[in-house]
């Protein structure tokens, strides 16, 4: 595998994860528990869509087939999507959404922190810009974990259940495969060992502060999203998201 091909795949994984998670967050608009949360969720979604666009534009450029970020977002099927499984999980209740968000944010934060030192200038630049946003995402979602974990009896139970339910999708963020190796070697992307440790420390500290139990780090972890093997919900999300460009292929919007 050439480094360029590996990098393209890596960018798709990043971009797709952002797109899909942002799309999920959009589903909350109009339904959030309080107006301030409509705003906060929307802001996070905006940031993620924006970062996704940057990653995917770069991916499209590396592919060199004249495709745009839009072509990638609206023209690929489930099997071609490379998002992490955690990003596609359905919203559930507010605790479920925040558990998903927090575990993702913590990974995203440490990853971008490392990627801003990438030997690939474009990767470094996108990561540095994104990191500012994700710093806020992580601060917000960890605050909510504590608020709900250490709020009422009901919120505590819901948050614990949410963490337990999403946990099996957290491991994939740290897994590597043949795509990573050449990129790590070239200093383009970080080795995941350090990031895994950082993530675990952040999560275990936050959950403890939130009076929540941290599930075992060696629990069975689902995988496959990065290789295009998704759960059954993704197809519905894509059918909705891609409907207009699919239904009106000659249209300009």
């Amino acid at each position, binding site marked *: 595998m050439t480094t360029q091909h590996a990098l393209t795949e890596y960018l798709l994984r990043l971009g797709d994860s952002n797109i899909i998670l942002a*799309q999920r967050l*959009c*589903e909350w*608009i*109009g*339904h*959030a*528990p*309080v*107006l*301030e*949360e*409509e*705003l906060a969720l*929307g*802001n996070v*979604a*905006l940031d993620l*869509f*924006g970062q*996704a*666009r940057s990653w995917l534009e770069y991916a499209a450029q590396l592919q060199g087939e004249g495709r745009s*970020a*839009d072509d990638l*977002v*609206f023209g690929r099927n489930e099997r071609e999507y490379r998002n992490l499984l955690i990003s596609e999980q359905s919203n559930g*209740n*507010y605790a479920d959404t925040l558990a998903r968000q927090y575990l993702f944010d913590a990974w995203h934060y440490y990853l971008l922190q490392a990627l801003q030192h990438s030997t690939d200038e474009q990767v470094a630049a996108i990561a540095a810009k994104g990191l500012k946003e994700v710093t806020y995402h992580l601060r917000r979602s960890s605050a909510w974990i*504590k*608020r*709900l974990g*250490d*709020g*009422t009896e*009901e*919120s505590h139970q*819901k948050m614990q259940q949410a963490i337990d339910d999403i946990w099996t999708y957290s491991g994939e963020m740290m897994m590597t495969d043949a795509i990573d190796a050449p990129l790590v070697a070239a200093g383009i992307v970080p080795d995941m060992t350090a990031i895994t440790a950082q993530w675990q420390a952040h999560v275990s500290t936050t959950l403890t502060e939130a009076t929540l139990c941290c599930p075992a780090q060696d629990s069975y972890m689902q995988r496959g999203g990065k290789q295009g093997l998704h759960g059954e919900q993704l197809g519905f999300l894509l059918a*909705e*998201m891609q*409907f*207009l*460009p699919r239904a*009106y292929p*000659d*249209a*300009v*919007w």
Partner: protein
Amino acid sequence: APQERHFQEKIDADIKIEAKNWMPEAYRRTLIRQMSQHAHSEIVGMLPEKNWLTRAPNLKRKLQLLAKIQDEAGHGLYLYSAVETLGADRDEELEKLHSGEVKYSSIFNYPSRSWADMGTIGWLVDGAAIVNQVVLQRTSYGPYSRAMIRICKEESFHQRQGYQILLEMMHNGTEEQKAMVQDSINRFWWPSLMMFGPHDSDSPNSAQSMQWKIKRMSNDDLRQRFIDQTIPQLELLGCTVPDPELKWNEERGHYDFGAIDWSEFYSVLKGNGPCNRERLKTRRDAYDNGAWVREAAHAYAKKQQQEAA
């Protein structure tokens, strides 16, 4: 009463009333109601747009639409804050929305049926709102006036974006897309005109509001202003409105237009619009389903305070 006279003198002298100033109870009540309605309209107005958010046709439009919805949530926040300066409580105002006691702009009881509606809502609906709000920048209550100044800037931006959506479809789109735009305008034209409220002759509370300078222009004048500024834009689009009587009146220096079907207006107001139930249910469910989250946040904040003390 001297207080009352002093109050009216300030109004007449275009001096803003501030939260700490004395004001007649009726002035306060009228303002609370109007500003709450306005705040609720921002929040409910997010719903027809959210309907297309997950189906926006490209990333640029998706980001724009999301940012617009965010702005509306922000406007809702300013306005609820402004209402609270009058001693009202946000949760109580929301209760009144949910019980149907206080309304929101009836235009949001129409469904958004196609992507073109994202353009039309920006162009016509926000356009009509701006005509109202521009005048309200000079309203007599200070916090309301300042909220309006801030909101107007963003709304004009939304309106231009909405118009751009339609322009793109009309000038570069397929025949199907052009039909989609015309259909959208056909559906939203009359409801947009109704946004200014009944004719002045049927608007009994207007006189008092005018005297208090809560209102600064009559419904019919605002409506005429909206039509006059919109029709040239319509022509640039290459579209029409579903009003055979619409015609430039050289003598008046205004567009003449056909009779508005007020029975539809009152019917929708009464709850019979296509989406009244759905909109209220969405808001009510969001509030009810979020109760445990708000309670938890409250409980947590209290614990934190206690620990800090």
